[in-house]
C-alpha cells in the first residue's frame, strides 16, 4: 500500500482514529467477495420466444420493408383506412387553385371575404345568382354583366368585364367551385366540362349580359 501514485487527500486520516487495519479498511473488509457467475442453462422458453420474434422480424421486413434504396417509398399508398381517408382533404380534380384565381381576378371588386363593397360591387357570399344553378354564374363569368342587378334585396348598377377570353375552362370551373363553397356558401362543384358546354352554346355572344336577359334565359 505504499503506492507513490495514490492520492493522500481522500485516504484514511490516522489522527482521527486508531490506526489498525480493521478501522482503516472497514468497508472493504466487510464486503462479500467479488461477484461470480453461475452456469445455469437458459430456460427453454427463452429460445422459443427468440425464435418466434425472429420469424416475426422476417415477416415484418418482407411485408413492410419497401424498396431497398435511397428513395422514399410511401408504404400505404392506395390502401388508406377509412379513418385516414376522412383525415385527408379531398383532392381537387384540376390542378388549378380556385382560391388563387379568385385572389388574382375577382377579389379586387368582390373583396377577399366575398362581401363586395356596399352599394358598389355586389356580394358573392349568400348571393342567389351564385348559388341558384351552375349555368348562370358560368354565363356571367364568360361574358360579363352590365346594368342594374338585385342581389340580396339591394340593387347595384355597375359593369363586370367578361373573362371568357382570359380564363381557361379549368380556371373558371375552379374559381366558381371555390366561390360556391366559401364564406358559408355550399353548392355543387362546377367541372371544366360544364364550362366548355356553356362556352360552346353561347359562342356568338359578344356583349355583356343584363339582369333581364339572365332571368329570361332561365325561364
Amino acid at each position, binding site marked *: 500500500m505504499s503506492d507513490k501514485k495514490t492520492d493522500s*487527500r481522500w485516504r484514511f486520516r490516522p489522527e482521527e482514529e486508531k490506526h489498525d487495519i480493521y478501522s482503516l479498511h472497514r468497508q472493504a473488509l466487510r464486503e462479500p467477495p467479488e*461477484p*461470480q457467475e453461475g452456469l445455469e442453462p437458459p430456460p427453454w422458453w*427463452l429460445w422459443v420466444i427468440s425464435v418466434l420474434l425472429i420469424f416475426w422480424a422476417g415477416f415484418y421486413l418482407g411485408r413492410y420493408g419497401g424498396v431497398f434504396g435511397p428513395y422514399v417509398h410511401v408504404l400505404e399508398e392506395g390502401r388508406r383506412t377509412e379513418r385516414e381517408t376522412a383525415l385527408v382533404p379531398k383532392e381537387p380534380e384540376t390542378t388549378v387553385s380556385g382560391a388563387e384565381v379568385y385572389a388574382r381576378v375577382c377579389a379586387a371588386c368582390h373583396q377577399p371575404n366575398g362581401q363586395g363593397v356596399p352599394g358598389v360591387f355586389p356580394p358573392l357570399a349568400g348571393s342567389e345568382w351564385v348559388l341558384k344553378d351552375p349555368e348562370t354564374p358560368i354565363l356571367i363569368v364568360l361574358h360579363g354583366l352590365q346594368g342594374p342587378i338585385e342581389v340580396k334585396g339591394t340593387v347595384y348598377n355597375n359593369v363586370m368585364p367578361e373573362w371568357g377570353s382570359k380564363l381557361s375552362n379549368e380556371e373558371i370551373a375552379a374559381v366558381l367551385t371555390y366561390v360556391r363553397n366559401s364564406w358559408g356558401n355550399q353548392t355543387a362543384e362546377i367541372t371544366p366540362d360544364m364550362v366548355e358546354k356553356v362556352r360552346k352554346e353561347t359562342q356568338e355572344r359578344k356583349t355583356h349580359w343584363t339582369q333581364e336577359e339572365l332571368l329570361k334565359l332561365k325561364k
Partner: protein
Amino acid sequence: MKSDHSIPGTEEAPELSYRILSDTSSSAPVIVFFTSAVVWLLVGTVFGLIASFKFNFPDWLGNIPALTFGRVRPAHLNSVIYGWASLGIAGLYVWLTARLCQTEVHWRRLLYISAILWNAGVLYGVVSILGGHSQGIEWLEFPKGAQTLIAMASVLLSLSILRTFYGRRVKHIYVSLWYILASVIWFPILYVIANLPFYSGVTQAAVNWWYAHNILTVWVTPAGLAAAYYFIPKVIGRPIHSYYLSLLGFWSFALFYNWNGIHHLIGGPLPTWLISVSIVASVLMFIPVITVAINHHLTMVGHFGKLRYSPTLRFVVFGAMCYTAVSFQGSIQALRSFNEITHFTHYTVGHAHLGLYAFFTMSIFGAIYYIMPRLTKWEWPYPVLIKFHFWLVALGITLYVISMTVGGFIQGLYMNDPSRPFMDSVQVTKPYLMARSIAGVVILIGHLFFIYLFYLMIKRKGVKRLTPPWYEKAEEYAR
C-alpha cells in the same frame, strides 16, 4: 460464497489487498467525477422544473429570453445527459473497472484532465444554449466548441479505462466489464461521428436520431446494466444466475440496440426499409431485455428481504425493474400502429424519464451509495435521509411516468380524432401536466436530501458511524 460451478481463474487472487489498492487509487478521480455529476444533477433538475412549470403557467419567466421554454428545455436535457449522467457514468466506470480488474487505476492524470474538460464543455454548452446559441438539433444542441471539449474528455476517459483494463490481474472478465469496455470504445466513436459537420436536411434528421437513441445504447444503458450486474450479486453475496444468459444478453444487446434510432422518424420522409429495419430491431430488443431480466430476477429470488437493509440494493433493483419496463414499452412504442398515437405527445416524455430516471438515475444512486463509503472511509451519516431520498424520488418518478403516459396517450387519441379541434388535445393534458410539475417538485426535494448527504460524505461530517445504514437489522435478518 462460491457456486459449485464457479468459473476458474479468480479464486487464487488475494482479493482483499487488491480491493483496497483499487479503491485507494480510484478514490480521488471518482470523487471528482461524482461531485461534479451531483452539481449537474441539481442544475438539471431545476431547469427541468422550470420547463415543466411553463406548461402550467405559460407566461411565467416568459420575458427573460434566457429562460424561455425553447432554451430551458434543451438546457435541462443537456445538463442531465452530459453533466449528471455522463460524469456519473465516468465515476462508476473508473471505480468498477479498477475493482473488476483487481488493479490500481492507471493514467489518473488523464482522468483529472477529462473531468475538467467535461465540466468546461457542459458549462460552456449550457451557457451557450441559454444565450441562444444552440445548434437546434435535439441532443446535439451544444455549439461545436463545447462538443469538441466533451469529445476530447471522453477519449481521455476511455484511454485511462482501457489502460487500467490492460493492467488487469484477473483471467476471467466479469460481465459488468464487458458492458464497460464496449461502452468506452463505442461512445467516443458515436459522439464524433454524430458531430461531423457535413450532414444536412433529411440526412441530418436520420443521423440526429441515430445518435440520440445510440447514446442510450452505448453510454447510458451499459452503465445501468454494469451497475445492476455488479451490485445485485455483490450485495446479496451470491453469484449471478447464469453466465450463458449474460452472454446471450450482451451480444443480442450489441446486435439489435444500435439499429433502433430511426423509429423516431416513423412517418418521416425516409426510405421505408430504413424505418422498418429499425422497428424490427426495436422489437427484437425483447430478447436481450428478457434475458437480462431473467438473469437478475433469478439472482435476486429469495433475497428480496435484503432490499429493506441495503440502500444500494433498493435503488439498483428499482432501476433494473424499470429497465425491463421501459424496454418493453419502447419495443411496443416502435410499432407503426402504436407510434401513430403516441408520436408527438407527452407519452414519449414519460418514456424518456422512465428510462433515464427510473432506470438509469436510480441505478447510479445505488452505485454512489455503495461506492462513496469506500472512497472517503466514512459511513452515510443519516440513514433516515436515505430513506427520504429513496421514497421521494421513487414516488415522484412513478407519479411523473404515470401522468405523462396516461396524459400523452389521451392527447394522442384526441390528435388523431378528426372531429376534435386541435386545442382539445392541448386542454386535455392540463391536469396531467400539473401532476408532472408536482412530481418534479417531489423529485427535487428528494435530490436535496441526497445532495446534503453527499456533501456530508465528501466532508466526512455528520454522525460518525461504524457500520453501514441498517447494518444491525441486516445482521438480524441474516441470522
